[in-house]
């Protein structure tokens, strides 16, 4: 425990967010890059270091809090959203971050995840999606592709996977984004936007598990081909991609499709609007090989924040009813024996 340097928020640097614990992911794991980018963003958010709390479940990804020199709670498999909810309700002024994996968040923790999203607590959820169970050494997860051969599916998985963003949208999420472990700048931007959003921010981070699911996202990380496979979303900009920026997305009736850009169809290209839930639904569904993988902020709308509603009721109750212990004891019929 370092008697840490008590700096002004504005003076913090990445180093201030590195804990004294040796980082213990496999060499080459995508988690390193995510950690580094998050540590880079935290000093810039204007929040005193002691007001950050990282809450995680169990999994490789969930070791994250140990490496960030803020408050942290490495909880139970799947339960981080529940524990974070109690923390945030008690201490709304804290900046609460949930770090989770595809198994932690979508398998055992699915229920807590959908409920924290619908309630819209003001927390930031970073889901490290490596499409595998890393810590338990390689079983398929609810995001593994059908047919996946893993330790627990030697003949291939017969499960249909979740699309995390679509599930979150179905659960009434108010902020959806996707980014990639190795896209340093993009990841930082998305994390910043997630923090800026008031309410629950749900960020899917595509993360390579080089031990048990290496190359799961090669199409969007491989330098040579990624431009053809990433659809980088920008607010108010048309959905154009490709090395030559020669392809775009347009609607064909109620279904989106990829088209080769030319002068005749440029105006038909969809323009990104993060307030549009239908667009969010369509983007959440776009998966390779038919579509490029959308990255960036997919959805970002306002809705009342849960803990503010709670606080407001408490304020009102205090104004209306006071809060006197003696009165509470004597509530109802009392009688005195002398």
């Amino acid at each position: 425990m370092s008697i840490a340097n008590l700096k002004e928020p504005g003076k913090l640097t990445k180093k201030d967010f590195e804990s004294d614990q040796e980082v213990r992911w496999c060499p080459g794991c995508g988690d390193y890059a995510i950690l580094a980018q998050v540590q880079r963003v935290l000093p810039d958010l204007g929040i005193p270091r002691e007001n950050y709390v990282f809450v995680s479940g169990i999994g490789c990804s969930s070791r994250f809090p140990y490496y960030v020199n803020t408050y942290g709670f490495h909880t139970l498999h799947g339960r981080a959203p529940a524990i974070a909810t109690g923390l945030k309700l008690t201490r709304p002024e804290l900046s609460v971050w949930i770090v989770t994996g595809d198994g932690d968040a979508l398998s055992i923790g699915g229920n807590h995840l959908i409920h924290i999203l619908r309630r819209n607590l003001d927390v930031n959820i970073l889901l490290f999606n490596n499409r595998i169970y890393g810590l338990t050494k390689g079983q398929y997860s609810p995001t593994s592709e059908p047919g996946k051969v893993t330790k627990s599916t030697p003949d291939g998985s017969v499960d249909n996977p979740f699309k995390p963003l679509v599930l979150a949208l179905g659960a009434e999420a108010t902020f959806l984004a996707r980014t990639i472990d190795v896209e340093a700048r993009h990841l930082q931007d998305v994390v910043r936007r997630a923090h800026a959003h008031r309410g629950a921010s749900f960020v899917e981070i595509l993360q390579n598990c080089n031990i048990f699911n290496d190359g799961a996202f090669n199409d969007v990380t491989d330098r040579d081909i990624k431009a053809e496979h990433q659809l980088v979303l920008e607010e108010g900009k048309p959905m154009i991609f490709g090395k030559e920026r020669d392809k775009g997305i347009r609607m064909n009736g109620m279904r989106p499709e990829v088209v080769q850009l030319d002068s005749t169809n440029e105006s038909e290209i969809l323009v990104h609007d993060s307030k549009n839930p239908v667009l969010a639904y369509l983007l959440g569904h776009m998966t390779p090989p038919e579509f490029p993988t959308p990255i960036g902020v997919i959805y970002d709308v306002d809705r009342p924040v849960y803990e503010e509603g709670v606080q407001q009721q408490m304020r009102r109750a205090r104004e209306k009813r006071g809060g006197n212990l003696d009165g509470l004891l004597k509530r109802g019929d009392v009688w005195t024996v002398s």
Partner: protein
Amino acid sequence: MSDGQTTFTKERQEVETVVIRFVGDSGDGMQLTGTQFTAASALAGNDIGTLPDFPAEIRAPAGTLAGVSGFQLNFSRSEIFTPGDHPDVLVAMNPAALKSNLEDLPTGGMLILDQEAFNEQNLKKAGYAANPLTDGSLDRYRVFAVDITRLTTLALKDSGLSNKQVLRCKNFFTLGLMAWLYHRPIEPILAFLAERFGKNAALLDANTRAFKAGLFFGETSDLFTMQYEVPPATIAPGTYRNVTGNSALCIGLIAAAERAGLPLFLGSYPITPASDILHDLSGHKEHDVVTFQAEDEIAGVGAALGAAFGGALAVTTTSGPGIDLKSETIGLAVKTELPLIICDIQRGGPSTGLPTKTEQADLLAALYGRHGEAPAVVLAACSPADCFGTAIEAARIAIKYMTPVYLLSDGYLANGAEPWLLPKIDDLPDFRVEFRTDPSGYYPYLRDAETLSRPWVVPGTPGLEHRIGGLESEYLTGNISYAPANHEQMVRLRAKKIAGIAREIPPTKIIGAESGKVLVVGWGSTYGSITAAVRSLHRDGLSVSQVHLRHLNPLPPDLGDVLRRFEHVLVPEMNMGHLSRVLRAEYLIDAIGFNKIQGRPFKVEEIVTRVKKLVEEEA
């Protein structure tokens, strides 16, 4: 009626103790009748004990056996401890209510019935082949068939209310009649009506009229030749109120949070019979109470643990099935050493079991129901009012020792009520929390030399940033450690911390002789029955002593000595022998279980008989 407006003229007989059971259809308002009679009796200065009995269905079809709702009240001029084994008086609003309760009425008992309700349709619904009012089957009782329905209707004929509304007033007619019969003060009841129906003049008027009609019917009808009177008990001076266990628990938690200087956080998921705590606390936001109805029990306790990490007095409430689900998270609380109160309002099990009935069969689960070595504190309340004090003790220990504490109550305590001598706030223990803020020399698992407790540091404290979690921690630093010796040290430390709490437990109070033939040891809600039984045995001249435990883990340090001073140790429990198993293992004493698993409390006489048998076997 001493100071009433009405003067009654019939002969009045003094009696020591009366047990009345009101029974009717769920729609008949028997709970209300019972609680109003109770409030009046309390104000009359009697000692009281009550037991409501809810039907398992929300609303079973009217008139059926499944829909019967009951409320039993024991009021006395002397100290009493239970709602009474058997009713002296059974007030039955319909045949189904009669049928399902008659077996409890002793021969010669008084039976007050709504005559008109014994019609063909209702008799059939209750499964009566013949009308018991006329077939002689009630000859063993003192039957008073009152035409309650007709008399209520008559009294309200110009009220302008619908027929349905009029019939809803039957219970106040009945209450009036019973108030007359037992000469209860009527002002509190009238005051209640004024408060309840204040906004609806027609209903206020109707219920008041029905109540008075009942009162006057008693006085004028030839049916009743005398009134009874239960003089006031000699009761410790002070201010009293009537309180249920769940309500006392809520007040205790709020008071504890205030004494600790912390906000109160409840994370819970509804379940019978614990839900009322959630309901009650939800209405007390003005006391800095946050209630969170979670998506399930796991989230309920998880949120509570998060709140504890954030610096609240954190509580989760549930009943049996929820205890199972919460156990993993409670294990994390043990490991991370955060304060947490887990209230288990026990009900009949196993599995979904008998949700509306009472039982004490979660003790072993509270003690041992977590994987690994995960010792936690276990306390139990022994009466409705004692839920208050037990809640405060739970909070005090949780905070001082940074540990989860189970608080065991049960359906019987939760819904039962008794008069409660209100404590003075300044007499409550003061355990104001000072979170650690000083970074110098800080480690997350630094230990207080006396309590072995670690420091409570809340997020937001500059310079004390740290991480905790469920993996084994290194002594002091709290860093993850898989070192064999460290693990053994930490396991033993956690055990020692909990065991050390014993040092604070006051000497065991023995009711009766300090040593002798028989000691009756109990815990939880059997307190009333055991105490009444032991008193009764004392009156019969038997040498029996009694110990009732609040602290179940750790146990009182002197308990082994106490137990060894008796030839026989009898442990009545509403389970298959949880405490007796613990006592046997702990003290190698041949504790004898006396077990009743019927979803119902012990009758006093059952315990009396069992103890007598033990003494006789001995002889």
